[in-house]
């Protein structure tokens, strides 16, 4: 349990982050605050306790599960840029491949150069823009159907186990992103604050679980 306590103790250092939906963040933070006051009293045994809302994250003590470490680069605009460039290169390759490979066509027009590439791009664009136009006609408020529809009601808490990362048994081995500038993965544009590079295991978490 020691690791989790350390994790929570560090919450105190959190700084407010301007990003995200302010309303839900605020609610979540207030829900988490009683647990900050008495971290040692918290013992999670048996079924997961239900808490009002998962805790919110701030750059200072953001957390990530071990597997997520391989994906932290998605928060970096530069890495995403590279991904997009890679996709562009793949598309160019596939487009040019049509030049050298004679496809057997079953449907009239199917054999034309770039047929599928254009079909994919145009279909997707038309669908998304068509749906966007459709929304102007069919969009209604969330409580449009009132109490006869589930849209405006929240899922009953008894059927959920809203555990924040770092609070349940599932938190074993949770990593702490002291600085999201992960070595060799992220260029550090997205989360500039913080000094040390790398991902560290939340202190003592792994060993103390048993």
């Amino acid at each position, binding site marked *: 349990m020691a690791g989790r306590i350390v994790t929570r103790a560090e919450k105190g250092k959190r700084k407010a982050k301007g990003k995200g939906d302010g309303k839900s963040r605020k609610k979540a933070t207030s829900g988490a605050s009683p647990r900050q006051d008495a971290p040692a009293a918290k013992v999670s045994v048996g079924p*997961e306790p239900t808490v009002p809302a998962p805790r919110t994250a701030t750059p200072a003590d953001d957390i990530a599960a071990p597997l997520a470490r391989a*994906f932290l680069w998605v928060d970096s605009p530069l890495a995403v840029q590279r991904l997009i460039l890679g996709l562009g290169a793949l598309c160019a390759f596939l487009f040019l491949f049509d030049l050298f*490979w004679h496809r057997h066509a079953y449907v009239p027009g199917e054999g034309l150069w770039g047929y599928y590439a254009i079909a994919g791009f145009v279909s997707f664009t*038309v669908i998304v823009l068509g749906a966007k136009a459709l929304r102007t006609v069919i969009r209604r408020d969330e409580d449009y159907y009132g109490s006869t529809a589930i849209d405006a009601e929240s899922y009953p808490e008894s059927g959920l186990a809203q555990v924040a990362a770092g609070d349940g048994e599932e938190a074993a081995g949770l990593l702490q992103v002291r600085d999201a500038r992960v070595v060799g993965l992220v260029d550090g544009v997205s989360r500039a604050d913080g000094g040390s590079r790398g991902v560290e295991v939340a202190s003592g978490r792994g060993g103390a679980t048993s």
Partner: protein
Amino acid sequence: MNLLLTPPFLYLVAAAVCAFLPARGRAILLLGTPLLGLLSLYLLGTGLHASVAVIGFELEFARVDRLSTIFAIIFSIAAFLSGIYAWHVRDTIQQVATLAYAGSAIGGVLAGDLISLFLWWEGTAVASVFLIWARRTPAAYATGFRYLIVQVLSGMLLLVGLLMHYEDTGSIAFEHLGLVSPGTFLIFLAFGIKCAFPLMHNWLQDSYPAATVTGTVVLSAFTTKMAVYTLARGYAGTEVLVYIGAVMTLFPIFFAEIENDLRRVLAYSLNNQLGFMVVGVGIGTPLALNGTAAHAFCHILYKALLFMSVGAVLYRTGTSKASELGGLYKTMPVTMVCCLVGAASISAFPLFSGFVSKSLILSASAGNGYYLVWGALLVASAGVLSHSGIKIPYFTFFAHDSGKRPAEAPAHMQIAMIVTAVACVAIGVFPGLLYALLPYDVEYHPYTVDHVLVQMQLLCFALLAFVFLMKTGRHPPEVRAVNIDSDWTYRKFVPSILPGVVTSVVGVDRALRHGALGAVGQVRSGIARISRPGAALARGWSVNSMMLVVMALMVLVLVLNLVID
């Protein structure tokens, strides 16, 4: 073989026993029953088993052939996987309902006659509604009733249809029916409702997001695929299905694209995938029917996987709304990876399950000259990528950071998702495993250069379009809202005009009664007038004129006799 040892009845017995077991026993039963069902199916072997004579009808409860077997197998697998996923559930009602529902669905695909099909048909309706009511909110009760009304309506149509069909043919056998009589048309409509044909589809998108976290996973597997099976059995090669299916693949993608509740996005996506299967049934060739069966098999797995991952997010965060989610990959990476596998499978990326099943249907439509339909399926394939392939994982686990840092899904949910994900990949990599189960022997090779190339072109350029739309700010944002669909007519429009209609009907009725009463009064006073003392009727008449009147009457009777004859 003993009736109770056939798969559907095994489930029913298990459901009955389940109600009296402790929590852990119930959860184990949920896992054990599908395994026993599979064993029973294996032991039965091909043929007609469990025939029961009831009031002169021979009911066939276990027709095992290749078409019914593949559906029975995938239903059993789905029941087992949902059992793992629902390991934490302590709600007896849900557990009993799940067993009864899965058993009814398997009974439906094994039914060899229309009467037993009807019984299972209603069984799925009644059992499944409890998975919605188990949410235990007023909205869920209301939604459940809407769902039940539609399902029971489908059952009534099936009953009336089968009675008319029996009148026509003297047979209750559930073989190929075709659209040949009013009876078969009604049966077709009944199947169409459960298969969510366009304009009969709203029950699906209305109810599935209203079920419990685990209930939706169960719901997604059975009802609609049972309907696909019945269409394949009764209406293979019915050409109208090709066009119905094509429309089904197209229209839901627009709704899915702008829907905020991710479980409803998946419900629309389910509708779109059913379209592919219905097209296959409509074409009706062995290749196409193989495509339908294969797609149903793969679809149940990847759709369950997607519902599981979104369900896990709901279980941990309390919401499945895209506008409230984002950035969850950091603390739910296992769920995220499984969701991505499901997304890749439904989008039909090579090496994932959707690729090896959807291509059978596309090949069949191109090979049989349905070029327009083939084009629609191509567009729909890009559409699948947009809402299920990108929207679900992207807006849940990436996109803008919602600040939510929920714990990873519980271990049993992770196991269920990982097993399902592995199955999706295994089918994609070794399609022979799936093809061996298909109803017809057809040689088909999905991994040709041509096929992989065109699919990759289609998907990569669609992805490029997504990047383009996001970068230029043209992609519609996720907003808290609902979108009305055709169910608006019976949920809003009719209720809103009903008072007016009632008032005007009452008004017209009153005016008509008033007029009629007035007319009766006029006639009465007229008669009174001519029968007053001294008036025409009260006067003394001469014998001559009496005779004249009698003669006139007799002539009239004679003439009438001649005319009417």
